[in-house]
């Protein structure tokens, strides 16, 4: 369960001030996947950072059931230490996320297996190819079995095959109903996240200009709605 209430945030002050969030509110429950589409600078990353607790907003509040322990973050940067092995990284992050000591090694093995990285577990991160490094980053995000996943443009730099794999994985992870996870996915490319979404939002200049269940709409429809919502409207 994740809820945001009246989130407002600005960067800087005075003339150079940038309004990153301008009154964003929503609630998500298990099994929901919110895809947030918006152009660069719309405030998507800021919103995710506020949800993750990285930034304290000027106004408004966020509630995540389970607190920071329940959040997994997948962003542009992997948060992995290059000179540690994949397994060492996972064990470190598992410790920080409060995974009980006895569970850490088995859990790491489990996640590595699921991502098909079992044989690379003891390689240092610097030696991995980009695609594998990406997978390692996902492993790190999943190591503590988070009930909320925040994804900031996760498909960036992935080729079609890797992107499809990731979509499939996310679909699995999302689960369903009460046992499912909450996913919040931010991207500027409608095609990438549409199929996964149960709910869709368009963000522009820090505001949700559209927020509704996907209700079976296909990528083309959503893309059209997006073009209208984001390209239209008055500036200022």
């Amino acid at each position: 369960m994740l809820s945001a209430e009246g989130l407002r945030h600005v960067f800087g002050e005075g003339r150079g001030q940038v309004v990153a969030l301008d009154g964003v509110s929503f609630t998500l429950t298990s099994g929901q996947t919110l895809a947030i589409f918006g152009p660069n600078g719309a405030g998507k990353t800021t919103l995710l950072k506020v949800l993750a607790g990285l930034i304290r907003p000027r106004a408004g509040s966020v509630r995540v059931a389970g607190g920071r322990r329940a959040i997994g973050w997948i962003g542009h940067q992997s948060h992995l230490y290059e000179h540690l092995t994949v397994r060492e990284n996972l064990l470190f992050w598992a410790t920080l996320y409060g995974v009980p000591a006895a569970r850490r090694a088995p859990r790491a093995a489990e996640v590595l297996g699921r991502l098909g990285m079992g044989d690379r577990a003891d390689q240092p991160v610097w030696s991995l190819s980009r695609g594998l490094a990406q997978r390692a980053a996902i492993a790190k995000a999943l190591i503590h079995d988070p009930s909320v996943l925040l994804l900031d443009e996760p498909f960036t730099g992935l080729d079609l095959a890797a992107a499809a794999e990731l979509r499939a994985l996310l679909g699995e992870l999302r689960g369903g109903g009460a046992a499912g996870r909450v996913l919040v996915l931010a991207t500027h490319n409608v095609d990438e996240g549409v199929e996964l979404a149960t709910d869709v939002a368009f963000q522009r200049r820090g505001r949700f200009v559209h927020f509704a269940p996907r209700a079976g709409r296909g990528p083309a429809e959503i893309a059209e709605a997006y073009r209208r919502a984001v390209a239209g409207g008055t500036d200022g």
Partner: protein
Amino acid sequence: MSLAHKGRWITLVGLVCLAGVYVRALAFTPVERLQGPAQKIFYLHVPAALWTEAAMILVGLAGIFYLFLKDPRLDRFAAASAEVGTVFATIVLTTGPIWGKPIWGTWWTWDARLTSTLFLFFLYVGYLLVRGAVRDPRLRARYAAVLGICGLCLVPFIHLSVFLFRTLHPQPIIVKPSAPSLPGSMLATWLFSLAAFTLLYVGFVTQRYALSLARDAQQGEHADHA
């Protein structure tokens, strides 16, 4: 009357008082027996040193309150106090040698006041550099508060270290210009000077604060129109 205006008036009164102090010091206060006319710089030197330290303490206190209250006015005040403190420190560090040369024969001496003020000067410089190196105003205020608080806590250690250090290196001539047992007329001049410096501190800080306020407001206006 606007804040800047008030500040200017206070500073003016302070400067007039300071001039008065000088007239008094030069014409009406007796010449000190041991040190001669050069001792008169002491009327300028000591109050400036006291306010250098007081300004740092105020920067630290403003920092503590800022971290709890997050009021940008506190940060503006801290910045103003730090700049004024730096100016006063410079006054101390320049008048000290000017005084020291005729009395001790050297330009610099590691006496308690000069050494402490030198420390404070470095603290101020570091503080202002950090302020200059951070663009985001909130982050800047937070970092400045942290550094200010650390500076505040360092002040007693500065005194302690200087005291301990000096007991090992006694001054060649024992001069205690800060002894409270000053003859009446000297004490009066000194107190008058302290009052003048207090006015100067308040006046300068008010003006500097007003300048910050004006700058922030101006940027705010533009943001509204954007």
